[in-house]
């Protein structure tokens, strides 16, 4: 169990080492630390709920029709996101739902689809993937904030230098 916790959090971090959801981290780099933490928390909760629902569906309903699993999981993720959009319509988080839907649902879907070693393992992986995303997207945003635009060669400004920064984080995580 400890191995899968450390793997989800560090050496096989879905976002930075696995590249899933990196678009979300890049797009949220301009948010404040608090906003990124709230966003990360929301993604973690979504991951947990979607993983539990998708695991149950994949194991009991779609066991004999596995080719439909990804599509059904996607419908579940989108349905939950629509429910969240309705529930959070008048809160501060409402503006972030479209962002989560557009960029992080792939992360949610991949983690949900990967949980085949039992519900406990799937939930633990989902929880620590969410925590890993939250912590390292905050680290990534803080690093991007410290990049001095003028010190970066013109062609590397913007996405290229952000990718190199993410690469440095990936390199640090792989060492674990």
């Amino acid at each position, binding site marked *: 169990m400890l191995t899968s916790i450390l793997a989800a959090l560090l050496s096989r971090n879905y976002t*930075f*080492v*696995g*590249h*899933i*959801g*990196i*678009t979300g981290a*890049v*797009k949220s780099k301009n948010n404040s630390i608090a906003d990124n933490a709230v966003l990360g928390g929301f993604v973690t909760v979504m991951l947990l709920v979607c993983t539990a629902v998708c695991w149950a569906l994949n194991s009991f309903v779609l066991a004999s029709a596995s*080719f439909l699993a*990804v*599509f059904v999981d*996607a*419908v579940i993720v*989108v349905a939950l*996101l*629509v429910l969240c959009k309705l529930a959070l319509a008048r809160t501060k988080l409402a503006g972030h739902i*479209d962002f989560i*839907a*557009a*960029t992080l*649902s*792939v992360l949610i*879907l*991949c983690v949900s*689809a*990967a949980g085949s070693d039992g519900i406990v393992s799937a939930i633990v992986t989902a929880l620590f993937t969410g925590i890993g995303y939250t912590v390292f997207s905050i680290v990534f945003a803080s690093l991007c904030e410290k990049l001095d635009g003028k010190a970066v*060669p*013109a*062609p*590397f*400004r*913007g*996405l*290229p*230098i952000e*990718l*190199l920064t*993410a*690469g*440095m984080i*990936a*390199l640090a995580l*792989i060492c674990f």
Partner: protein
Amino acid sequence: MKLKSFLGSMPVFLLSVGVGFVLLSTATVWAALGMSASVIVVFVLTALCMKLVDKFVSAEYRLFAAMIVGVGFSVLVNLLMQAFLPAVASELGVFAAVVGIEAANIPCEDKDGVKLNTVVSALLSGVAFTVIAVISAVIREILGSASVFGVKLGFLDSFRLKTLAGAFGAYVVVAAVLACFCKLSAPKAEKEGK
């Protein structure tokens, strides 16, 4: 749309397709070609389909509808790949089946404010993805794995950079390729450092 403007808009198009998918599919040239074909087909079909049902879906929920339609098409394309290109399908795994979700991000306007048809945007996003993914994959496969299209290049074996074959290598190569495109698209005065 001019070529220079298109090259300059590469990062915008790449963000709309999802940088993660570009990074994921650059491990081998076959994976890059398979994912690129999948992205172009899924994005264009999703854009066409959304154009047809646009009147019946409210703007507020268009994104969610596009996600479902996109995943539907990408699952179909993935099943076809499993039937006819099983090696490429197994290399891409579940990622080829979920790329359709990103079709919801197809940009409606380009960088210079020129209004683009969403089908054209989808096609341009797919082409941008293909160009960057294939160039990055060729570089990573030759320098990182000393092979090209899966064929081993024995004379390069002792010179290969194993780091380029890993996760870090994907970031470095894609960033370098993007920087080259940005340099090519920069105005002449900027290139000369004026």
